[in-house]
């Protein structure tokens, strides 16, 4: 069971998740400090470790649209958040998978801040409203990258295999 700590609307862009003015900061160890930097109170709570790992952000359609900046995924991964949205923008979704940030697509999800959600294999149960929402699983190949612990490890394995052959 985990708590919803932020509820957002449609088309939340990477400029909102990780504002451009912090883009010179690139390392996944340093980006979490600037997650949602323009949501000052939320950002402070994140940095003060007010939320437990696994806490949930709810997005609408097209979450993570805009720039390909990977900081938008790494800053959320650094706080071990889970992102549930009606749909995701392509590059953000792939970046999240590549970095091992947990994302769940739930086209009908309804939840408010402070709601308690139970995340299951194929559905989400909102304990606060008593409603259940179905989820769309990641594609097999994306799941394989998640299972490997991200694209760096996945690529490393492939690299060693290729090199063993030649």
């Amino acid at each position, binding site marked *: 069971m985990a708590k919803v700590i932020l509820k957002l609307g449609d*088309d939340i*862009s990477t*400029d*909102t998740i990780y*504002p*451009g*003015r912090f*883009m*010179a*900061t*690139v*390392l996944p160890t340093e980006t979490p400090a600037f997650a949602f930097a*323009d949501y000052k109170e939320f950002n402070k709570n994140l940095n003060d470790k007010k939320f437990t790992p696994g806490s949930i952000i709810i997005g609408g*359609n*097209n979450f993570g*649209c*805009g*720039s*390909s*900046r*990977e*900081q938008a*995924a790494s800053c959320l991964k650094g706080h071990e958040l889970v992102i549930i949205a009606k*749909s995701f*923008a*392509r*590059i953000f979704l*792939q*970046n999240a998978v*590549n*970095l091992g940030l947990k994302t769940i697509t739930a086209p009908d999800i309804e939840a408010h801040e402070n709601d308690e959600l139970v995340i299951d294999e194929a559905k989400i149960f909102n304990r606060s409203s008593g409603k259940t929402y179905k989820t769309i699983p990641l*594609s097999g*190949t*994306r799941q*394989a*990258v998640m299972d490997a612990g*991200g*694209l*760096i490890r*996945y*690529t*490393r394995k*492939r*690299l*060693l295999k*290729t*090199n063993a052959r030649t």
Partner: protein
Amino acid sequence: MGLTVAEKILARAADKNTVRPGDIIEPAVDLAMSHENAALVINQFFEVYSGTGLQPKVWDPARIAIIFDHRVPAESSKTANNQKKIREFVKEQGIGKFHEIRGDVGGICHQILPEYGYVRPGYMVLGTDSHTTSHGALGAFAMGIGATEMASVWSLGTILNLEVPGTIKILVNGTLQPAVYAKDIILNIIGNLTANGATFKVLEYHGSVIREMSVSGRLTISNMSVEAGATAGIVPADDTTIRYLRDVAGVTDEIEPVSADENAVYEKTVEIDVSALTPQIACPHTVDNVKPVSDVEGMELNQIVIGSCTNGRLEDLEIAAKILKGKSVADNVRMLVFPASARIYNEALKKGYLSDLSASGAVIMNPGCGCCLGVHQGALADGETALATTNRNFKGRMGNPNADVYLCSPATAAASAITGKITDPRHERI
């Protein structure tokens, strides 16, 4: 069954006879582009190699392009250090297509790649920038990826687990009215498709208006395809493409255009007749919030920006200069012009566009991304409104979440500079 342009390119790159939407493939990459975010790619690239006992070596240094554009010259020591790290890596790995901060060969990545002939029809192009879709204007399959994905590409030379996207055909026919341009067409298309109407899809552009359009206009269209969520935005190559690559980019070797099969299968076809299209504008804070300029005419402005990988090309500067020549930028606005590349800057200088713009009160900035992404120059104050020829108006995009950004064509921007208010360019003689 026939193949679309994207399917043909991906099949060739994956060494297959055919592919279908939904297939998972590992296509070989013809060109891999990064800008300042190469600093992160380098970090992730070394991570891939860490503990393997292998010497970190990119798969093909000749196929990697790195262009400094997002923060040039560096705005902070942090950026300067990132750029330094990249320079060292470029040298170490012998990366061929490197563009420094220079007044002769510098510029925005999405202008440099076409200008130098780095992209050809049929190429599989990846870039760590969402507007990598721009290069579809030359008949290539070009898409944006993240830094870790690029580190994987640098290591292996292929992109792993790519799902072949379906294609939407966009047919643009009719006759464009005066003061209506490629930017107005693509804004209109995005408004109709919505910001995620083409997510995981390729847009393939056809029709007489696209065929008659210059490569500059096509780049504007492919560039902004990502604002409808598209993976790629392709204008199949034709004589105009070849002429551009020969005459402007100086390409001398063989060019092989890829066209769709007669019986190619599209997910849907969207037809647009532009004959009645008027100048368009994207209103805050989403790119698909598109209206006719006439709907918001008279809105007071504080800053006008002409430039970016969308509309910072010679044709764009020419239109702006023609409108502003002998006129004056209104007192209440700051007008900033940043050409897309050093070459464009120098050509615009020779043709007198820059002096006309400067004399009118515009500030001519160095080539690069300038204020487009709100990290470097031209930030907005709280409550201010900007009108820009750039491609994004998300909250915070021009450096301040408490400001508004509207997007339009260079003609609309220039006409509005004279009045200091949003102005329909059809009132100007162009």
